[in-house]
């Protein structure tokens, strides 16, 4: 069985629908982070919710080799004492209204918590 890190990206060229992944835990205490990273496809979307928003700061460290569209919510950033400037450049800062309108575009939502 293949290891998470050894997974080749082309294995994920599935024909299924795109998924919106929701991450919820502080990246340093999240045993599911690697599992999530390994299942994300280029047309997927990943939302760093609540404590997971911390992963948007030292993103190279927490989220190496990420694919897909990555999002973080502004209210979460502010409650964690972070500013938009702290966030990695390829991660978008959005509002809750934007998240709602984005989420209906994905047939399946998956919570990693």
């Amino acid at each position: 069985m293949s290891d998470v890190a050894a997974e080749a990206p082309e294995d994920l060229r599935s024909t299924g629908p795109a998924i919106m992944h929701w991450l919820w835990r502080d990246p340093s205490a999240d045993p599911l982070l690697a599992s999530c990273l390994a299942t994300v496809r280029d047309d997927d979307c990943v939302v760093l919710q609540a404590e997971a928003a911390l992963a948007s700061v030292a993103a190279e460290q927490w989220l190496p080799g990420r694919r897909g569209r990555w999002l973080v919510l502004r209210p979460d950033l502010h409650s964690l004492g972070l500013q938009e400037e702290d966030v990695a450049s390829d991660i978008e800062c959005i509002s809750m209204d934007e998240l709602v309108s984005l989420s209906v575009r994905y047939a399946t939502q998956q919570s990693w918590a």
Partner: protein
Amino acid sequence: MTGLAAKPVGLAFCRGPHDGADARERLDLALALAAADWPLSLFFLGPGVQLLRRPAVTDELRDFPAALGTLVMFGVEQIFAEASALERYELAVDDLRISAKAISSAELRSAMDELSCLT
């Protein structure tokens, strides 16, 4: 949009057996869905694979095997365990309490594609 009932519901077990009541309460959810003949797939991910460990002796704290056995009795067959997690916790597929298919991340993703929702 189509109704949820069109495709199977996926339930993901992501926490260990004694890390709060999470595993116990998600099993209740699985039992309710299975009893209502709802098509169901079970995923054991990360620390959740520990739920599948066949105990050496009966655990005095909480009895999981009974609930897992009932799910099999209800005809739930789509049971998957994350291969990398099995490895990390030194679990062999043959040692599991119920029969589960070890899947890679790519296979996990393909299985997710078949679901109406995964929760």
